[in-house]
């Protein structure tokens, strides 16, 4: 009896030790996965912001106030370059404002498998709201311009099967909300050329090692595939960027007379500069950051 109790005691101790160690391992593993998911969200924010700053996308969130919110304003046909190639600024044979053009028919970002532009989804800024449990319309929000996408990498998913973008290292991201504010931090539909604006970008980062088989960086994956993966971890980040208008090819200068850079050109009257250019909008600095949990 004594021996039996002794063995039982040893077994109990062993199980307790194993349980404690295993629990610790799980906790550390989860913490590591959470860091990876957070990194994915951070990286996604970098990608989305640089997409907005890419030539051809710099005018998608801004426009002239007088035009109001419409297709011509957000995606002006008058400044639309007719191909998927924008010549270098330094070439004397090219117009100096071509880097400010919006690409024709949405081929700028989204490509078919053969590299040709996908003409189905034009590049367009699409305002949205931050999703929450009560908001069934979480991917749409304020709808501008027939729900077309901002860009392949900065688009708000709408069940197109292109929800998550693969960053490599088992990490994915997807932008889930964009919201534009004017300089007084009230909601705006479009960035104006005579004042700074603020753009908040919310991005979900996912660490999901089971979804990466045969995936290459830049590949896309459907939301349903990731959301049902119990081995994945999600982290949501939101950052706010200052949106500074400036004259294309001039760099940062004045905004309605106030200096935001060394250039003497004023974003409110770019056409009056020596070499006529058009206004473009650059996401410059992060002014506010927040992290929050959201339901899977």
């Amino acid at each position: 009896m004594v021996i039996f109790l002794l063995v039982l005691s040893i077994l109990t101790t062993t199980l307790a030790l194993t349980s404690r160690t295993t629990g610790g391992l799980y906790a550390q593993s989860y913490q590591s996965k959470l860091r990876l998911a957070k990194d994915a969200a951070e990286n996604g924010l970098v990608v989305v912001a640089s997409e907005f700053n890419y030539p051809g996308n710099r005018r998608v969130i801004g426009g002239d106030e007088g035009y109001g919110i419409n297709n011509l304003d957000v995606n002006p046909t008058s400044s639309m370059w007719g191909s998927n190639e924008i010549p270098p600024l330094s070439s004397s044979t090219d117009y100096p404002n071509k880097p400010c053009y919006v690409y024709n028919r949405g081929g700028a970002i989204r490509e078919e498998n053969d590299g040709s532009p996908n003409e189905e989804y034009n590049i367009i800024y699409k305002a949205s709201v931050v999703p929450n449990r009560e908001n069934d319309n979480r991917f749409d929000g304020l709808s501008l311009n027939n729900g077309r996408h901002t860009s392949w990498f900065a688009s708000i998913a709408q069940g197109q099967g292109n929800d998550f973008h693969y960053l490599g290292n088992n990490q994915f991201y997807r932008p889930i909300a964009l919201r534009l504010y004017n300089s007084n931090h009230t909601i705006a539909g479009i960035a104006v050329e005579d004042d700074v604006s603020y753009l908040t970008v919310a991005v979900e980062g996912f660490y999901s090692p089971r979804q990466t088989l045969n995936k290459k960086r830049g590949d896309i994956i459907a939301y349903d595939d990731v959301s049902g993966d119990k081995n994945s971890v999600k982290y949501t980040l939101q950052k706010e960027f200052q949106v500074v208008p400036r004259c294309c090819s001039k760099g940062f200068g004045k905004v309605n007379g106030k200096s935001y850079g060394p250039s003497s050109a004023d974003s409110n009257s770019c056409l009056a500069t020596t070499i006529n250019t058009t206004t473009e909008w650059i996401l410059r600095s992060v002014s506010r950051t927040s992290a929050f949990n959201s339901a899977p």
Partner: protein
Amino acid sequence: MRLSRPWLTQGLRFKQPPVPDSFSLLETVLAAVLLVVTTLSTYSLFQVNMNVSKFSHELDAADRELSANMQEIRLLGARLNWCNDTASVSPADCGQVLPLTQSYYSKSLIKKTDATTGVDVDTEFAKACKKDVGLYQFPDRFYFEILSKDDVNASKDPLLTVLVKAIFEYTSNVKRIVLLEKTTRRLLIELEKSVSKGELGGSRKVTRYLYLVPEVAKWCPS
């Protein structure tokens, strides 16, 4: 005649107490062996658990080290600026002013007047911005140029040369730096650290990806 109380004549009879026999001795020995084996097994399991726990702690430490590296590299990206016709990651070179601040530059970065001809010409910054950016053609948009420490070349991109070199010098955990997109200078920095499994044998690599766009690149006119 049968006596009703036989012990009165036969005396009291007591059952003999059990005495150790050969089987009982074997049981004790086996119990002792079992106890030793169980103790050794427990010790072994405990050691394995300790090793695994130690390995897990080392993995976690490596993970946190890479996270700290990434944060420092982000700061390097934020500090990269352009002063006196060259790039620098040292704020002292630009009077402690960073590209994030609104008053980053007091003079034009784009054009300057040539003292001889009196004609406006591109500054070194403007030239650096255009350097090797090339055509904005989509097939070339994702420009997978791997930048190694020994391959840092100012002729490729004067804006990034100083930053890439500083990143490599900051930590040996950087495995490679890839220039993903030329125009906005989007970099992919891959960090890697090997962790030995100790008595378990072998090693395991912890990998982290960092996407970085230096703030100064936004000041480019192009």
